[in-house]
């Protein structure tokens, strides 16, 4: 009996680029190169390790995003995922978290799943809520923000390092998991992996395939609205001094002037 793992991955603008908003106050995706959210590489890695520990498992990577988001899927496939699902539809432009979770949940149900694996947060929206939203929509346990995860005997266990305590968690499958960047370095795709990825199947789905009405998603259907986005003014150049033996004193002088001492 095969363990069906779905990994949700997001295609995001490179955080080291100069990210901007478009005129309609959505993310300008033409402006900066996109890539597989680095935090989702950790999700793919943990899925691969879970598969390696299982007798029989299959990994599907799933993304909701524009045409270019295919790059994120290819990267995940070249790391070792088996197949991919790409939800792409012009009407998805401007979808918010509630809408994204609706689309992901329907696509996950259509694909079939025992385990859903997500990153801890995307590197653009950085909300960190999608896994919880999915658990609520799919009505299955959420085992989130894990720095350690394993699956055996139909159960997922993991460690969640919180603010005030570290918790050991356990849930029966099916479940939604999210993993942090503490869960273990993600592997690099090998040359063989990159070549193999080219032949792996990528299924394309649109809103109609998922029986979602256009007005449930997109900018029009969004539950939230951005009214204004302003670029933060560049900081005015601060004072910079070279330490010639007095650096600590000078800094203390500055801090005292600002009433911190």
């Amino acid at each position, binding site marked *: 009996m095969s363990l069906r793992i779905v990994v949700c991955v997001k295609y995001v603008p490179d*955080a*080291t680029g100069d*990210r901007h*908003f478009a005129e309609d106050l959505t993310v300008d995706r033409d402006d900066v190169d996109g890539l597989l959210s680095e*935090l989702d590489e950790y999700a793919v890695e943990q899925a691969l390790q879970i598969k390696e520990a299982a007798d029989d498992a299959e990994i599907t990577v799933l993304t909701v995003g524009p045409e270019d988001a295919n790059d994120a899927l290819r990267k995940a496939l070249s790391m070792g995922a088996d197949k991919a699902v790409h939800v792409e539809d012009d009407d998805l432009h401007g979808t*918010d*978290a*509630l809408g994204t979770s609706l689309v992901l949940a329907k696509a996950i149900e259509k694909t079939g799943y025992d385990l859903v694996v997500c990153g*801890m*947060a995307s*590197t*653009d929206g*950085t909300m*960190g*809520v999608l896994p*919880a*939203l999915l658990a*609520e929509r799919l009505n*299955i*346990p*959420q085992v*989130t923000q894990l720095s350690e995860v394993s699956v055996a005997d139909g159960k997922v266990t993991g460690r969640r*390092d919180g*603010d*005030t*305590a*570290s*918790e*050991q*968690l*356990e*849930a029966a499958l099916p479940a939604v998991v999210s993993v*942090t960047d*503490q869960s273990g370095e993600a592997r690099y795709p090998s040359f063989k992996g990159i070549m193999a990825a080219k032949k792996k199947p990528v299924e394309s789905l649109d809103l109609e395939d998922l029986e979602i009405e256009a007005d449930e998603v997109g900018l029009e259907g969004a*539950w*939230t*609205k*951005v*009214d*204004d*986005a*302003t*670029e933060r003014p560049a*900081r005015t150049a*601060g*004072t*910079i*001094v*070279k*330490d010639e*033996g007095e*650096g*600590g004193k*000078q*800094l*203390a002088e*500055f*801090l005292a002037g600002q009433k*911190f*001492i």
Partner: protein
Amino acid sequence: MAEVLVYVDHVDGAVRKPTLELLTLARRIGEPVAVHLGAHADEAAKVLAEHGAVKVLAADAPEFAEYLVAPKVDALQAAYDAVSPAAVLLPSSAEGKEIGARLAVRIGSGIITDAVDVEAGDEGPVATQSVFAASYTTKSRITKGTPVITVKPNSAAPEAAPAAGTVEQLAVTVADSSKGTKIVSRTPRESTGRPELTEAAIVVSGGRGVNGAENFPVIEALADSLGAAVGASRAAVDAGWYPHTNQVGQTGKSVSPQLYIAAGISGAIQHRAGMQTSKTIVAINKDEEAPIFDLVDYGVVGDLFEVVPALTDEVKTRKG
């Protein structure tokens, strides 16, 4: 006046500061009603009342500690049904965001996370967010359902505003489907005696330049002289020099103190994402080209092992 639900973050009835900030923000859009889950509601109620809570809805059930997140969503939903609020505010912790998200699905509402300010607007509350590693400031609102908004620590100064703060018991039924994720064991984090990182007015952080766990006391000594919290870059954390709970940045804590001091930190975008909204930024780095210097109000180009101890001594002398 419309009521606003405020989810209380507390440790055994000791209300954490971000909740008092939420009460202050809530008063701008209505009358705060606090939701306290767990033991010691009476103790919490005193503090909550001093900060404007007209009512405290309290519920305690073993399920809150035995299962992850979902039973708390059941309780918050019960509070929502009891009050029909104009908005729901929660702290932007991992748990606060997850509780808010699941409630939003249940009540058919939108959610805004990581707000740094909340104001009343013509069409409901307006939330300010600081996005793309704080390079943009956005104003957003929720257009469907009851606004669910999570707010970052240090977003408002808590104001005293005495109110009744009457404690009412909230009847909560935890659904079987909310008992899916068992908390098998819990290891509390040891307290360092220093202020909590996200709540501290001053944060002193060390990075790869600190060059070893054995040197972190240099950073700690400066922090202690200023009554500050200690932070670390991911490079320092990954090297095992300091605990992950002290990491500042995109995948660590996001801090917004009055003063942030970065020693031996280059200023990578992922680090900046967690500290760029600090009011005053100071850096000590021996490389004058380090990107962190683009952000600073005051920077010292120099060896941190010279500058930091000298600063610590000077602070101690001045404080007497």
